[in-house]
């Protein structure tokens, strides 16, 4: 295993501070890892531009790699191409649902259409698709608030961002 591959493996241990079941790799925020002359460069991209977790993620990545013996770690911030929920790994989506957060749903609608229909989101608890949107803005920038009409569970939906 070369150094880059090893670093990707270490990054699997760095979790999202808001959703600890996801690693930063699952989340798709790590875009690139390069090692040159003992300097590690990790390129990350923000999920949302104001996400307060990004500083923590950058710090956690740095601390993890320093702890694994790398001397010099540089974190690059990449804005374009902008993060999309398509970069959330399949494994990440399964972990999210098990954790009680409905993963983003591909609804085929255009997010730029101003008055689209609401997305059908499956309840992470009872798996019913009879759910309703409570608020497009939830507990963090990346989540909307839904409620299940069958089991009445209120739950977070990791909203689609494209």
């Amino acid at each position, binding site marked *: 295993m070369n150094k880059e591959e090893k670093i990707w493996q270490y990054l699997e241990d760095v979790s999202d501070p808001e959703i600890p079941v996801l690693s930063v790799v699952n989340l798709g925020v790590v875009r690139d890892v390069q090692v040159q002359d003992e300097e590690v460069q990790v*390129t990350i991209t*923000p999920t*949302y*531009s*104001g*996400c*307060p977790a990004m*500083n*923590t993620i*950058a*710090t956690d990545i*740095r*601390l993890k790699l320093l702890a694994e013996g790398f001397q010099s770690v*540089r*974190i*690059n*911030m*990449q*804005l*374009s*191409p*902008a*993060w*999309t929920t398509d970069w959330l790994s399949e494994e990440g989506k399964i972990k999210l649902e098990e954790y009680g957060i409905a993963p983003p749903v591909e609804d085929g609608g255009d*997010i*730029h259409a*101003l*008055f689209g229909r609401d997305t059908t989101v499956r309840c992470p608890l009872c798996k019913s698709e009879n759910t309703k949107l*409570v*608020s*497009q*803005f*939830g*507990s963090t*920038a990346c989540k909307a*608030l839904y409620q299940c009409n069958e089991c009445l569970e209120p739950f977070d939906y990791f*909203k689609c*961002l*494209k």
Partner: protein
Amino acid sequence: MHNHENAPHLHEQHFNTPVQEYAPEVKQLVLDYTLQLADTSFILGHRLSEWCGHGPVLEQDMALSNIALDLIGETRSLYQYAAELEGKGRAEDDMAYLRDTVEYKNPLLVEQPNGDFGDTILRQFIFDSFHFFFLKELQNSTDHRLAAIAEKSLKESSYHIKWSSEWVIRLGDGTEESRKRIEKAIDNLWPFSGEFFMMTATEKALLEQGVIPDYSQIKQSWDAHVAKVFEEATLAVPQNVWMQSGGKEGRHTEHLGFVLTELQYLQRTYPGLEW
């Protein structure tokens, strides 16, 4: 995030889109314009943050705070870029906390007080209807960093414009009281809706350089969207209103001074203070 020499912060960030090569006069224009965009998102983001804990219901309190956060996020990318363009060792916090009212170049609309929920919704609706269509075009800017910031913020803005448009419809076509409130807000705020489309000398020069989009096209999209939402809200679009301007050139209403007094208090009182 003050970065002191030779002491890298744990969360020091480097953007991987480098600052482009510009002739000095063009660079100054791009810098001025980047600050104008940053100031606009910053002041509106700050205004929205004043709602935190005071929203009419919990979900809308969270919506207001979420939108504030997105705008402050956009602001940070823009101030960081401005600091890099300037190249004088200033950082994003210096831009936010140590510039005075005349140096702020935001349009007058965004510094207007929150008023009631109707005022806040209408202010947001006027802004979002500009911001959304503006970012769509700014993605094609010849300035790579501004294009990247626009690409990022557009996705967030598409949620904002849905939210404020739906609320205009709900308030306009709602109860007698809600209609009265939104109509009052329209009377108060409409004179501030035109400034977005009035081009300053800086903007005209940057349009020629291909850095910024032509506002007349954005105005068409803005008009069409406003007309559609107001029709559904059973509200009348005001006609022949005198439009205020001056904010983009540093001439502000008295409100901005109060905003900055509160927001810059700590850095003015304890210069260089860090968390």
